[in-house]
């Protein structure tokens, strides 16, 4: 690989290192063991309950072990079609979001394209917007009765539709758009910490801009892009809302909608079959992760932050700059303006109807009044912010240390990485049930409080934290720590004083990302919240289920606006504090 020759820090001889740092490696082992224990306590109980749930049947108090659920699942008619659909849906959505979000991230982080702040804002707003709100906004826009099809009918005189959103195409489009901001933020962290020396070298050697991108930037970003594709792919296989709201009306079935039907056909819900299907998913995902870890085995090849100082440089787009600006403006239009337009419209109506002049006399601010006059939202707000803050902080702390140990190949590194990534396989409800059973059997008094929700969310978001920390860590060459170590610092001091500060941009980006996700997540709080630990997303779900779409739009818009303010303030504070100087 081109890059290996250019990399400044060559590997020190292992033997010399062994002698010099032997006693310090012990400290790393201890840290590794502690982090491993924390991860195991978080991740293994739900896995255990998943496994037990899948292979046991309770018959009048007698527990019987069986594989019949797997047989039933694998022999079911239609399950192959659903699996195929799931893969098409996941691959399509992953590609689309990588294309849209990835292009935006590259333009913002690595070129002199205009409108960068707007693009950041776009992603932060999009991430702070609750899922149910976003999905329904897109459905309102693209539905048969939505403005696009209505205008088409008015202009053409036809009675049909120009866009039929209900089907695989619509599913991929909406899911791809939903994931674009996440791709932007995850990939942005990698691109931002990219050492431009290599690209400069390429260009000085006569490579064109495109040639540099193709032969240097893309190959170097490959681990991050692959990791991200894997993440989006797996999460999309597990996605439920879009397949349910967009796929089912078009008779497109995927695995998750099958699980859902399975859980709702019987009472009480058939957690056993859902667990069995999750284990099958786990197997598929495990195989993919194994393949992926082989691909990225030699992480050191990709280190670009070395002991040499570096400044991010930007590719001069030249005559293409206005076009890049247009692309980013369109990104903003697509992700914010369009959904916001339809939501503002909805929030001003007593009941939802499509955008048309006849509805203007009905416009009212009643929905905003209803939200502002309800005292209940204050306690929901406090709960939600507290949960999101605690979750994001815990995840980033654990995964920063774990990523450091993983990348530096500390004892048990592979185990840490696998434990941190394992929660990817839990569909929300299965994880929720696992955590609930754990705390009912280990009475430490957090059942029914917000802390059980934090616990479950930490597990749920560990893989995101791992990706953020890992993406940052993979670029830090070990020579910095070796210098610290040679100067007498213990490994942990090296981590604390060198790695952690250098990782900060990635960690802050990850923190913000998880914070925003945690404010809007629904499936876990619905199951785990007690009377005094309700969250905003649960309240929004109530409004949705109750058909108060316009009030939901009003609440959702105000909520997204406040989340955006929080994110922007946080961003500015972090920037002032120096954490994002390179951002």
């Amino acid at each position, binding site marked *: 690989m081109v890059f290996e020759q250019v990399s400044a820090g060559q590997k020190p001889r292992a033997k010399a290192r062994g002698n010099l740092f032997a006693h310090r490696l012990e400290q790393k082992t201890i840290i590794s063991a502690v982090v491993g224990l924390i991860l195991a306590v978080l991740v293994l109980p739900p896995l255990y309950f998943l496994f037990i749930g899948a292979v046991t049947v309770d018959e009048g108090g007698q527990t019987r072990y069986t594989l019949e659920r797997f047989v039933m699942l694998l022999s079911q008619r239609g399950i192959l079609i659903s699996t195929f659909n799931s893969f098409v849906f996941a691959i399509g959505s992953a590609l689309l979001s990588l294309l849209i979000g990835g292009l935006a991230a590259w333009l913002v982080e690595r070129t002199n394209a205009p409108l960068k702040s707007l693009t950041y804002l776009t992603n932060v707003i999009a991430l702070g917007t609750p899922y149910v709100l976003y999905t329904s906004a897109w459905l309102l826009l693209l539905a048969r009765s939505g403005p696009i099809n209505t205008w088409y009918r008015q202009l053409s005189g036809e009675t049909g539709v120009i866009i039929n959103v209900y089907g695989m195409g619509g599913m991929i489009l909406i899911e791809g758009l939903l994931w674009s901001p996440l791709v932007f933020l995850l990939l942005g962290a990698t691109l931002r910490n990219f050492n431009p020396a290599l690209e400069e070298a390429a260009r000085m050697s006569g490579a064109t801009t495109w040639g540099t991108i193709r032969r240097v930037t893309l190959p170097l970003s490959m681990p991050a892009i692959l990791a991200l594709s894997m993440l989006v792919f797996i999460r999309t296989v597990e996605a439920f809302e879009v397949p349910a709201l967009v796929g089912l009306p078009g008779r497109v079935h995927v695995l998750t909608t099958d699980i859902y039907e399975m859980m*709702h056909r019987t009472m009480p819900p058939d*957690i056993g079959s859902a667990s069995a299907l999750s284990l099958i998913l786990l197997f598929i995902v495990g195989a993919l992760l194994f393949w992926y870890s082989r691909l990225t085995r030699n992480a050191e090849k990709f280190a670009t932050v070395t002991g040499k100082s570096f400044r991010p440089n930007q590719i001069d787009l030249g005559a293409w700059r206005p076009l890049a600006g247009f692309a980013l403006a369109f990104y903003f239009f697509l992700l914010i303006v369009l959904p916001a337009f339809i939501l503002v419209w909805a929030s001003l109506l*007593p*009941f939802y*109807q499509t955008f048309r002049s006849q509805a203007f006399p009905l416009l009212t601010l009643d929905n905003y009044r209803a939200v502002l006059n309800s005292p209940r939202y204050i306690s929901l707000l406090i709960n939600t912010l507290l949960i999101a803050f605690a979750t994001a902080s815990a995840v980033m702390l654990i995964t920063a240390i774990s990523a450091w140990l993983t990348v530096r190949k500390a004892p048990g590194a592979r185990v840490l990485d696998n434990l941190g990534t394992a929660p990817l396989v839990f569909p929300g409800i299965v994880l929720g*049930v696992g955590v609930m059973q754990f705390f009912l059997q280990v009475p430490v008094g957090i059942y029914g409080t917000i802390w059980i929700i934090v616990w479950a969310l930490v597990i749920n978001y560990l893989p995101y934290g791992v990706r953020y920390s890992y993406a940052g860590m993979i670029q830090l060459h070990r020579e910095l720590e070796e210098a610290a170590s040679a100067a007498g610092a213990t490994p942990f001091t090296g981590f604390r004083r060198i790695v952690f500060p250098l990782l900060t941009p990635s960690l802050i980006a990850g923190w913000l990302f998880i914070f925003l996700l945690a404010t809007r997540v629904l499936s876990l709080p619905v199951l785990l919240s007690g009377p005094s630990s309700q969250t905003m997303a649960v309240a929004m779900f109530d409004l949705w289920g109750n058909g108060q779409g316009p009030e939901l739009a009003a609440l959702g818009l105000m909520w997204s606006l406040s989340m955006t303010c929080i994110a922007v303030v946080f961003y500015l504070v972090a920037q002032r504090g120096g954490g994002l100087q390179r951002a």
Partner: protein
Amino acid sequence: MNKLAGAVFSLFVIALCSQSTVRAEPSAELIARAKKDGRVTWYTDLIVNQIVRPLSEAFEAKYGVKLDYARGDSQDNLLKALNEIRAGRPVGDLVSVTTGMHSLIEIGAARRYVSEGVSLIPAHFRDPKGFWVAPNYFVMTPAVNTTMVKPQDIPKTYDDLLDPKWRGRMVWKPNDMSGAPGFIANVLLSMGEDKGMDYLRKLSGQNITSVQASARAILNQVIAGEYPMALQVFNHHAVLSAAVGAPSQWVPLSPAAVTVSQVALIQGSPRQAAAELLVEFLISKEGQAIYQKSGYFPTHPDVPAPWPELSPTGGKYTANVIDPEIITRDLEKWNGIFKTMFR
């Protein structure tokens, strides 16, 4: 409960039977014990801002016992209650669901409770063994978008739904009694197996759209103009929307399907007296009046429906109360029919 297989009840006949004059107040002793409990936890599937909050405010004001509630769908509530009981640490004191109560009763997790107050509720709204009582019921009917469907085109009988003009223009949700299985159940119970299956086979040719959302959200899609007609929604929702100007109208096809909202006490829960007091309150005239005021159909014979013409007791149409025991027995079958014929 009536043990006749496939038993259905014609509501308006039953409602004429009893006008009670007995006044049932909870005993001073129960109130004292409930006050000692201090609070009570209710896992409910009712909508918080519509009905749970007014109920809780009135209950707290009257008895000084704090009512903690957590809202989830039937599935969530049952999962919570079942898991707590299996772990031997019940937290919820009472739970309400529309489907699946049998899974609590079967493992001995529901606590029997009979009282003078409960006995005032008509027999088809409570469990004969005393495991649950229903403070309210729901009426499920079709509803149309009035700007898309002309008055003369609104169906008057179930056979009208088979008209080719409805092909591809109807919507329902694929699960629960408030969706396709509830509609299928009602058809089979009222027409009988053979005629019912024959009807469903014809209906399956109508290419009905399934949308995975609450019945209320389905009705909203009809109001928004996405589909002209929903097949199985709560009829009072259509009326509530029409009251604020929405183009929605419910369709009184006879017989309509009626399901009940069941409340049960949890065996071994920490605050049993307060839980009993809450049940008494929910089915008292005072509690029932709150249901009525919030637009829910109360079950107490002395408290009329919020809109008499919406209730089968109004005499405009007939209805089947779909017995929870039959739901327990046949839900799987109805789901299967949906899956093979309509999915």
